[in-house]
């Protein structure tokens, strides 16, 4: 039994040490963004998270630009495609609000209605900006 107790004791110490070493993202959690969920998704792998953030930093603006262009050209199909892609990306980052706005834009595109998309377009840009900030803060943890 002593051995068993020692095992349990040792295990608890490991877990406690792990928790103490894990980054805390509680302060970033909001209705918009769930950092814990993202952290779980990358299997608590900061390296992978940073790689993802880098890719998004590069690809996010391109996706937004594509949505802008679709709206300016009145191309519903292109709006649907670009919004769908943006939605998929932000879903992976657990950015609920941004994903919801992208989904609305995608739905508009699918419905063939580009007119009146500008407010959503602006809202999406704002959400992406906020997401980028949050992601940068996450990436800055435990450097």
């Amino acid at each position: 039994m002593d051995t068993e107790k020692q095992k349990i004791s040792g295990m608890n110490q490991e877990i406690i040490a792990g928790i103490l070493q894990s980054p805390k993202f509680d302060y970033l959690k909001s209705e918009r963004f769930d950092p814990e969920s993202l952290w779980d998704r990358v299997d608590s792998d900061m390296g992978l998270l940073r790689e993802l953030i880098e890719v998004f930093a590069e690809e996010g603006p391109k996706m937004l630009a594509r949505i802008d262009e679709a709206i300016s050209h009145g191309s519903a199909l292109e709006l649907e495609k670009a919004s769908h892609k943006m939605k998929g990306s932000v879903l992976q980052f657990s950015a609920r609000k941004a994903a919801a706005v992208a989904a609305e834009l995608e739905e508009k595109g699918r419905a063939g209605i580009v007119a009146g998309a500008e407010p959503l377009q602006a809202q999406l840009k704002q959400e992406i900006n906020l997401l980028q900030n949050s992601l940068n803060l996450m990436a800055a943890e435990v450097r």
Partner: protein
Amino acid sequence: MPNAQSCGVDFKMSTLVMDARQTALLQVLLVEDNPVDAKLITGLLLRGPSAMLKCRHVTQLAEALHQLEHDAPDVVLLDLNLEDSAGYPTFYRVQQAAAKAAILVLSGSDDEELAIRTVREGAQDYLVKGSFDGRLLLRSIRYAIERKRSQEALRQSQATVRAIFENSLDGIVIFEGTGLCMEANVAAAALVGVPREELIGSRLSDFCDKGFEDVWGDPSVNQNGRGQFWLQLKNGARRMVDYCFRANILPGQHLAVLRDITEQQDLEEQLRQSQKMEAVGRLAGGVAHDFNNILGIISGHAELLQLSAPNAVDRTRAERIISATEKAASLTRQLLAFGRKQVMSLKLLNLSTIVDGIRSMVDCLMSAEVQISVHAGKNLGLVRADQSQLEQVIMNLATNARQAMPEGGNLTITIEEFHSSKDLADLPPGEYVRLSVSDTGVGMTEEVQSRVFEPFFTTKKMGSGLGLSTVYGIMKQSGGYVTVQSTPEQGSTFSVFLPVVSGTDTSAVSAEPRHSTRVAGNETILLVDNEEDLRNAASEYLQGCGYKVLVAGDGKEAVEVSDQHQGTISLLISDIMMPKLSGRGLIEHVRKTRPGTGVLLISGYTDDAVSNHGISLDPSCFLQKPFTFQILGAKIRGILDEAAIGS
């Protein structure tokens, strides 16, 4: 492949236990145009446990299809919405190109209906982006692969079962508890004689004799069964079916396999009949052989009596004894013919010529009320047979037809070529000449037909029951076959089939030469027969004809007589089967010591028996018992004269 990325790595998985076999060298094709998604997925796949995972990433459908032409990944992770394709068409194209790979659809849409439809269309799983982590992704991949393997095994199994079902020569039927056919294959429909669509939805009992249900039983009680039943087809034909069934192969669904054994039954019946006839033939032949020896003695002594009778009354009595023995010998000849033990003088014959030759006899045989017609094909092939036997066959069949038409009718004799392509019990494939004798008489029931060739079976008050059995025996002996078709009150047709002898010239057929009737001579003859009465009578007769006769009771004694005789022995007349030394041994000795001596064998058996005893002899040097001394005398004279010409 500008956008293709390949990465392979070893990694440890501490939380997800994966079988090494399942994950070893796992090939993954990721089809994803979103760089973030692609980075996340490859990142998740390339971290972790012990297995090798090779992941190739492409961003467009065209690239994916190109890749699938060269690689056979275990799993395809597929985003349906790509730059060059969107929605289900993406899935169908990939599914078509990667028939053996599991497909795991990745979607940004958390749509349950869409997910179900995707899986129903053939995807092994559906994952919503943002809802899975590394563990879930790996588990999904593993399950998708397993599911695909199971589905593939099931598909192959179903394809195998379907192929067996559709190509089986046996009928296969799935039916429910009420007996209603739910599924049936083409063979089952053909067996029942209806289109498959008609059989499905019907009951087998609809096509069977009454009492079928009793035979089939209740599947809820009898789990397995085997038996036979009769199908009654719409066209009136009946088919004997051998079946086996297994109840509840699926709940409430029962399997029956049906095999048409009608022909097999017919062939078995023919074989049984043939074996019975064979046995009866052997018995009849054996009896006839013994009887012939006795007849020979009676006939021989009667001939001697006739020759030495002091007055006309005694000569007449002797004549009547001879006449009676000839009639008795005729009966035994028929028995021997049935038993296929009659001596044959085989020649190439044209059946049409044979019929022409005995046409006048057939005419005499018929009453005035019978109309006779003969139809003979042109350029008929030749057959190898004994002419007198064939004449007997025709006469017997004609006699039978006449007796079947007491009130008159039509007798038709047809001779034609016949090609047998089907392997019947006694008629192998090949070319035949068929001689059919048809009458419009009383016909026969099936029962009578089945016994009609049995010796002594007759439906006539005065019939011997040997006429048709003789036909049967002669045909068997000649390598031919005889069939009967008959309908009560309508008539009968007997057909005999004889194989055509290929490569023969029909013009070469000649008439049979007549026998010499001269019997006297003065040569020395060694006569060997263990039947003392017959030996003595024959000896007395031959001496009366002027011959010098040496006699012996068996082969050994004959050797001694031959060796001790100083003069010439022109002819050895010997029975074949004798005690002490057989005919073969005797002949070998005589041929060695007296090469100029002729040989005439006599036996109650056939020339087959001669060859079976290892004796090589011209068939003309054989005489079958019983024979009159006059025939014996003529035969002796013929052999001796021929030898004289030869020397």
